């Protein structure tokens, strides 16, 4: 199961959004991987190091690939995080 999503948070996949993303990826019974939409390489979504290491910024597109019982639910939840702007003060 695969989906391409545009990253909405100002910070990109860093700091808070990344933290929330990894936390969520770990909640589901699914193996989720992600990568830049225009590249073949994928990294585990459950790893904060790997996720922030991708260096994905605001407005870039990422590819999410999930396998397992909760694959669809996991993709829905992760897509939701990537498409929600973060609160700023």
């Amino acid at each position: 199961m695969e989906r391409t999503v545009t990253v909405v948070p100002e910070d990109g996949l860093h700091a808070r959004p990344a933290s929330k993303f990894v936390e969520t990826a770990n909640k589901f019974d699914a193996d989720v991987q992600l990568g830049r939409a225009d590249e073949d390489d994928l990294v585990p979504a459950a790893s904060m190091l790997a996720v922030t290491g991708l260096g994905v910024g605001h407005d870039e597109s990422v590819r999410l690939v999930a396998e397992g019982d909760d694959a669809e639910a996991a993709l829905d939840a992760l897509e939701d995080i990537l498409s929600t702007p973060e609160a700023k003060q």
Partner: protein
Amino acid sequence: MTERTLSGIGVTPLSGVGTVVWYRPDADLPEPPAPVDVDAEAELARFEDARAAAEDELEAERERTAERVGEEEAAVFDAHVQFLNDPQITDGVSDAIESGLPAEHAVQETFTEFVEQFENMGGRMGERADDLRDVRDRLVRVLSDGERVDLSSLPEGSVVVAERLTPSDTAQLDPERVAGFVTVTGGRTSHAAIFARSLALPAIVGVGEELQSVEDGTEVVVDGESGDLVVDPSDERKEAAAAAADVDIRHEAVETADGVDIEVAANIGTLADLGPAVDRGADGVGLFRTEFLFLDRESPPDEDEQYEAYVEALESFDGGRVVVRTLDIGGDKPVPYLDLPDEENPFLGERGIRRSLGPDADLFETQVRALLRAAASADGANLSVMLPLVSTVEELRAGRERFESVAADLDAEGVANELPEFGIMVETPAAAFMADQFAPHVDFFSIGTNDLAQYVMAAERGNERVSELGDYRQPAVLRAIDATVSAAEGEDCWVGMCGEMAGDPDLTELLVGLGLDELSMSAVTVPQVKAAVAETDTADARDLAERVLQADTKAEVAEILTLDQ
């Protein structure tokens, strides 16, 4: 010894004198033993124990930071826990242990590899490298029962000097004992800088490698305003800094030289701001920006949580007034769980009272319930509430009716409640023009100068290209303030001011002369403004205000104010 000066970036307008205590958390590890001596199974168990202990520490520091500094700053510890439990890290460490390294060396090696990787990527990744280093040092310390300077029990008057201070470090600092801190790296928005501001500590960041030449035990003056670190200061320098550091704090109410009471209060966003407000001598709270209770979370705070927050603010001041502004959401303050529309001009769109009477009516009702209950608490008589961004009399009436109808509901439920003192923010030209119509319906006005200047001058806040126009010293802004104060004269309506202008001690005499009864500002400048009030004579101040109101340009306003100094 002659004094010398190093310069960096000052992050708080405060000075401090103290003795340097170097904080070097990453001392080198001893050489690892030969692989044959390492019991891999035992080392793996040590690593697991250390990981659990480090996670406990992080949870505790998260709590403490959330309480003392705020949710925003506390969230970084969540990222630390994630790095700590990251599969790439745990696998890497396990592999290194299997290959014959003791746990602390395996941790050091694995993390350092990732730290370098992130550092090489530059930019935002540099911050992640700092986080990783922080987690690594914590683990190594736990594993080696590391001896290092204990930041939570430094001698009084210590100036902490470090390469960098991580959120874990600053969470341990005891602001009562620390005279300030100075770091080699960092900028105005670094964790350390934000921390210094919220706790009102003198601090300088980004001094550079030259800082390494300042030895442990050296006497220094930290000038957080200019960014100067004076090493081996002369006696005069120390006295000047010490005088700047303490003359100012007055915990008692202040009056002008001729005996007119002026309330000097603090603006707060979260409960973490209460401590510094009390410490800096604020009489109370002149602006509690309640939207901060709603930001940075998944769902809005419920009635009880809000009630507790308002009561805590009331209890923090001995009889001091606490002015709570109802939700001011919209504009530049998005909230993730509210479906805020995209607007072309958010500052001119649905924000403040417009949302509370419209789409956020339910949120508003919950807040009103909490406020009415808080007004009936032990210190509830000191509670005042005000509505943001009012521009018509209908909005004021509707807002007021809301409080009355909710009070009736609470009465019907048998829940104790009181109607608090009731006011509005004057931030729109409409409110300033109509102030005489508003005055009979309210107990007070609070002039929000940041928004008032923006709307009077049609110059967006934060847009540097129009910052000259949006300046609160523009004659049109001063006239809007004068119109508001004059309209309240003769009515039973006091007038306060919150916003940056109120915290500018160079303008205190003018504001007293214009007839303001209360000034509310960020806690840091409360002592300076109190000192300025005490020096003011109201007859002279009125004379100054009259001259300033005749000025036809901002330059002329500035000139009159400078001549008056």
